[in-house]
């Protein structure tokens, strides 16, 4: 099957600063691809560019055969993006937040309802979904926005630090959800600082540093290449 996402020689400059320096990678259907690297390496810029909210300086992003630069609106129909510090509308309840995005994505009320049911299940917030988001803890908000990102079953979910702010139990639950959705065909591009998480959830890993993709492979391949016992040691080798 053709790759869901193809990033080719992607470059992104902010003024004089080159944040991303010609990186290339691809993601197959049902594959979980993790970008790991130190702060300022270019992970979030890459994720934002794939999510069509930043324009690349050069290079291309192709999503399911669609040029993201030429047809960003078409690409947005196929993706879902979870920013690292995603907030939610405080005046809304959890339920109305999920409903809003379900209705944005689906014209068919039945599909929107199905997405809403999925969202409720992933969020796992029970009766608290009826409460205003202003009363949610950081962890509850994170679970809700993650549910929003997954409930539409996008071709590609772009998750920036998906378990940020979650406790261990909730983080494990989220990883299981990501794996489950991937097994059903959803591709995932994620970034994380949690190497244990990356090793558990990812099929392949891209090590990025100073805007360059230094290594791509399965966690086992990466560890072997850097002679590391775990991904954390490989990460340190690249970061230095």
């Amino acid at each position: 099957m053709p790759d869901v996402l193809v990033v080719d020689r992607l470059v992104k400059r902010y003024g004089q600063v080159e944040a991303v320096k010609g990186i290339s990678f691809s993601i197959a259907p049902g594959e979980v691809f993790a970008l790991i690297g130190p702060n300022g390496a270019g992970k979030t810029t890459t994720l934002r560019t794939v999510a069509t909210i930043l324009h690349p300086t050069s290079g291309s992003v192709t999503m399911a055969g669609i040029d993201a630069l030429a047809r960003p609106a078409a690409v947005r129909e196929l993706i879902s993006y979870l920013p690292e510090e995603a907030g939610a509308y405080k005046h809304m309840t959890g339920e109305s937040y999920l409903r809003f995005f379900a209705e944005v994505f689906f014209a068919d009320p039945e599909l929107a309802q199905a997405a809403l049911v999925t969202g409720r299940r992933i969020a796992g917030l029970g009766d608290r979904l009826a409460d205003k988001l202003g009363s949610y803890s950081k962890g509850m908000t994170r679970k809700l926005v993650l549910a929003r990102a997954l409930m539409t079953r996008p071709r590609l979910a772009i998750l920036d630090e998906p378990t940020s702010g979650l406790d261990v139990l909730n983080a494990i639950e989220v990883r299981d959800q990501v794996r489950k959705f991937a097994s059903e065909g959803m591709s995932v591009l994620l970034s994380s600082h949690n190497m244990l998480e990356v090793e558990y959830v990812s099929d392949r890993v891209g090590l990025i540093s100073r805007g360059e993709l230094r290594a791509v492979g399965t966690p086992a391949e990466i560890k072997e290449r850097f002679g590391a016992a775990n991904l954390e040691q490989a990460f340190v080798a690249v970061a230095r």
Partner: protein
Amino acid sequence: MRRFGVLLRKELRELMTVQMLLPLMVTIVMFGLIGNLVGGQTTEGGGATAHVVDADGSAASERIVGSLADAGFIVVTSPGTDPAVAAAADDGPGTGIYIGIPAGFGAGLASGQAQKLTTYTVMRNFSFFAARDAAALNAALDAANRSASLSMISAATTSTDPAGLRDPISLSENVIIGNRSAPVTIAAVTNFITGQTTFIPIVLFIVIMFAASMIASTVASEKENKTLETLLAAPIGRAPMVLAKMAAASLVALVSSAAYLFGMQYYMGKLGAATGGGAAVAGGAGAAMDQLGLTLGAGEWALLFASLFLGILVALAIAVILGAFAENVRAAQALLTPLTIAVMIPYFLTIFVDLDTTTPLVRAIVLAIPFTHPFRAAPALFLRDYGTVWLGIGYQALWFAAAVFVATKVFASDRILTLRLGRRKSAAKERP
């Protein structure tokens, strides 16, 4: 279109909060309460008391008392002969009015000699009511003076027309507007137009600032609350995104302005009745105003509404752009300063200056401001100057289209996430 509807509902829910509705309700209730208070004071103050210190006790002094009573005063005859002493002893409440009629007043008039009345007004406040009572006193004494004058002329001559002798020249005022003429005073016309259009610049100013503040805050709060990135990655076109925010803000602004207008009209109506102001003048001269064509038909009201609404939309579109540059809600409010100035200039000019009499340069600058045109629309429509109104509408439509285009481009570009006014150096470093 469906997504626009979903977004519009979301934006409306965001704007129609208790924090927004509560001050609005309080304001309307306050207008009502103040209006009723003013109305109550009118009823109570309808018969203000005039103290007459009559040292004469003649038929002439009785006529003075009669004039005061005719003017609606409750006349109280005070003892003594010195009104200053009586006024000094006044312990209120309210305005104290004292009229001193000196001994020999009636006899002096009868012998054809001019006489002097002395008044003392004890002022305890500077409200409309104090001014109203003073004006009523002057009118009553003018009437008494006129009556005395006519009596003296009658006594001194054999003329059958003493009024003609007193006022040999009478004035018949006419006003011409366009090709229409009516026998009416310029003051009556001015009062009528003011009564019809006073609220328009006030309400327009309030609505523009209110709506602009709302929309800039919603854009900035999307950034501050970290919801913007999610929204931008959702399958929603940039134009619907901008237009939904504008539609919601303009709807809320219109509802709010209607509420404010209702409250202000209620209050001003009560105040007008209390002070005997323009409403009565305008009402009495209604036929002349019709004759002059100073009444707006449905078409003219529609044009006026179009001009006002376009003014609001232009402000909203500019506020979206300004809000997009702000990092948070507080910064968004600060960034609205240029817009506030652009609205205030034509607002004050409309009130204080005739733009047509300014220098060509000033006129060109002021006319270049899009918000000048809704302020000019109402007077132009009363003068049936449709060209000015249509040109203003066209000019505002161009501004609106340009501002929406720019706003859409800003939302479609990296700038919505990366641009911070005054922070260009650090923005680039922060992004990766």
